[in-house]
């Protein structure tokens, strides 16, 4: 037999995140107990279960309301964006308000709760319901005195609902030592969900926990949830992980010099960037530059401001020549300015995720991250950030976080311990020298890209951010007026060197000319000598010739004298 066939079937709740926690939905055809203190959202969870069932899964539902009338219920859930009256009209939801007032009832002997069963049956049959909510069943304990009758009737009710295959939610008020005040958990053995509205440091957070789920694995942790204008929003921590796709696409930082420092391209898309620095070092300006660049590409940006109002950021950024107003008008930027103390840390995370899901931005800025520490411990902030960054990466959203470092302390250790989560870390730092303060920008890390390791001077001008190429003097990096002075000194020295060289060149030209003339003289001398030698040679040749002629003449003369003498003898 296939295990999938014998394992229990589930009815999806349709509540964002909850189905992931309970791995598919509530046990189909069984009863789930939802318990918790007053105002923890039991009724809203139950109502949404019915509404989503009717709207999305074609399962009509009956709401047996022991505490609120149909009108009150309709009004209460309208704030969740649920139009209950329309669903009632379409026969998709049936609300039966059950009113019990102990003082109006006299008990005079044996009875049972068949009336409740009959009402439930007629409601179920009226709309063909598959889902049932009993909210809050425990009210009947206050309405009737005979505890043993009630308990056996409740047991009968649960058995009956199971037999009819109804997927039900029963809500119960939390007791002091037990899950419910009247021990309803005794009768519900399949699935128990506990809701809590916890107040820590005067800030409330809503928490959901699955206490038990027979026959199914489920998330064991406490899951924060929100009651939003679109229903409940449960954050399933386990759905996040390290198995996201990574992009090798680059996006501009909005500052061309910074792009060049980051291997000429800018940040990676989907990466997380930390910009840290002490007060007034231009962290927000860097963030806004990136946002501006993204808007120029037509991408949507979400800006969470925990310190300044949107208007203030807009005004301040105009002073450095960045005008975000047109982008806001085009719907490309959305600002969410909230004080950190407005919610608990988990609620912040949820709100951020919800806003991201609604707006679908490509770029997100949290400015500044450090303000969140004021409402939680570092561990909590880090745990929240891990999940936020995972979430952002899974959605390929580039995120920039700014972090305020306390002056005087070591900037590298005061980073909420989050730097290890970041792909790129830019540090903007005040460089104090010669009685003035200037900003220096370093890239401390940039995962997966060749980046400049130089310190750059970071200047806010009225036309945006400029990073000035580094000037290294004999005493290290020079910034501000020292750089300007050094540069002019350097220029003067250069000019001087240049004129010196020119002078030297002139001298050498003279020399060359002198040598040239000397060469001329020497050459003339050589030529004269040559001429003299040539004449001598010619004279010598003439002499030889003359001698030869003389010799010939002598020989001829001798021959003539000899012959005349012989004849005579």
């Amino acid at each position, binding site marked *: 037999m296939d295990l999938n066939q014998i394992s229990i079937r589930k009815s999806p709740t349709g509540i964002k995140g909850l189905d992931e926690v309970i791995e598919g939905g509530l046990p189909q055809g069984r009863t789930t107990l939802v318990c918790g203190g007053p105002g923890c959202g039991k009724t809203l969870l139950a109502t949404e279960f019915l509404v989503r069932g009717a709207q999305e899964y074609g399962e009509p539902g009956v709401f047996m309301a022991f505490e609120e009338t149909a009108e009150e219920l309709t009004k209460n859930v309208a704030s969740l964006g649920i139009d209950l009256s329309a669903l009632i009209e379409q026969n998709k939801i049936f609300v039966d308000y059950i009113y019990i007032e102990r003082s109006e009832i006299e008990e005079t002997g044996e009875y049972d709760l068949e009336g409740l069963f009959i009402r439930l049956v007629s409601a179920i049959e009226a709309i063909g319901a598959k889902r049932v909510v009993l909210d809050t069943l425990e009210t009947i304990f206050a309405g*009737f005195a005979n505890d043993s009758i009630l308990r056996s009737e409740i047991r009968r009710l649960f058995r009956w609902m199971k037999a009819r295959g109804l997927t039900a939610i029963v809500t119960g008020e939390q007791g002091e030592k037990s899950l419910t005040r009247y021990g309803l958990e005794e009768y519900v053995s399949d699935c128990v969900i506990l809701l809590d509205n916890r107040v820590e440091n005067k800030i409330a957070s809503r928490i959901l926990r699955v206490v038990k789920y027979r026959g199914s694995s489920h998330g064991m942790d406490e899951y924060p949830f929100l009651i939003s204008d679109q229903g409940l929003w449960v954050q399933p921590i386990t759905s996040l992980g390290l198995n996201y796709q990574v992009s090798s696409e680059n996006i501009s930082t909005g500052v061309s010099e910074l792009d060049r420092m980051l291997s000429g391209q800018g940040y990676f898309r989907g990466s997380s960037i930390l910009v840290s620095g002490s007060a007034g070092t231009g962290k927000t300006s860097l963030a806004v530059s990136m946002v501006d660049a993204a808007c120029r590409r037509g991408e949507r940006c979400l800006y969470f401001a925990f310190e300044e109002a949107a208007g203030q950021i807009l005004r301040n950024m105009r002073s450095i020549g960045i005008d975000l107003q047109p982008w806001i008008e085009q719907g490309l930027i959305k600002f969410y300015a909230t004080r950190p103390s407005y919610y608990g840390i988990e609620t912040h995370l949820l709100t951020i995720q919800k806003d991201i899901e609604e707006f679908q931005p490509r770029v997100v800025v949290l400015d500044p991250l450090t303000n969140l520490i004021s409402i939680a411990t570092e561990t909590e902030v880090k745990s929240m950030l891990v999940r936020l960054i995972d979430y952002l990466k899974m959605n390929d959203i580039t995120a920039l976080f700014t972090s305020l470092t306390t002056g005087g302390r070591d900037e590298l250790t005061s980073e909420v311990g989050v730097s290890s989560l970041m792909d790129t870390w830019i540090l903007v730092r005040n460089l104090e020298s010669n009685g003035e303060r200037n900003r220096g920008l370093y890239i401390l890390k940039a995962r997966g890209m060749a980046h400049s390791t130089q310190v750059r001077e970071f200047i806010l001008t009225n036309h945006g951010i400029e990073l000035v190429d580094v000037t290294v003097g004999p005493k290290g990096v020079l910034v501000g007026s020292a750089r300007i002075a050094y540069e002019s000194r350097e220029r003067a020295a250069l000019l001087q060197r240049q004129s010196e060289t020119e002078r030297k060149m002139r001298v050498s030209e003279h020399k060359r000319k002198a040598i040239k003339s000397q060469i001329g003289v020497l050459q003339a001398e050589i030529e004269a000598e040559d001429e003299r030698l040539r004449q001598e040679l010619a004279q010598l040749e003439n002499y030889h010739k003359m001698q030869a002629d003389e010799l010939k003449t002598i020989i001829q003369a001798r021959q003539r004298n000899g012959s005349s003498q012989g004849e005579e003898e």
Partner: protein
Amino acid sequence: MPVSSETTFPKHASSDEEDKMWELRLYVAGQTPNSLTAFGNLKKICEEHLAGKYRIEVIDLLENPTLARGDQILAVPTLVRKLPEPVKKIIGDLSNTERVLVGLDLRPIGERKVRRANKPESDAL
């Protein structure tokens, strides 16, 4: 001790109220032992205390399930006193006669007198 229907009414009650009919509704779910017992007990109490002045309507919720909503019925059997007002609800098989009389405001005269002595409007009379 049999008590006549007249004496069960408070002395200060107007004669109009005395002449009014008692409208009683008994909600049951089928012919269960509880419903049969309840009907028998009710009939007996009415004959004893409200002879000729009452009307009992038995509603079987198995036949008319939607009627359970109107009178907010959860438990069966439930006896509802529709008239005289205010509406009263009594649940159970009505075997505890004393409690039924209290629930219907049909208390024995002795008790009534003690109660009335403490009421300011009875002093005015």
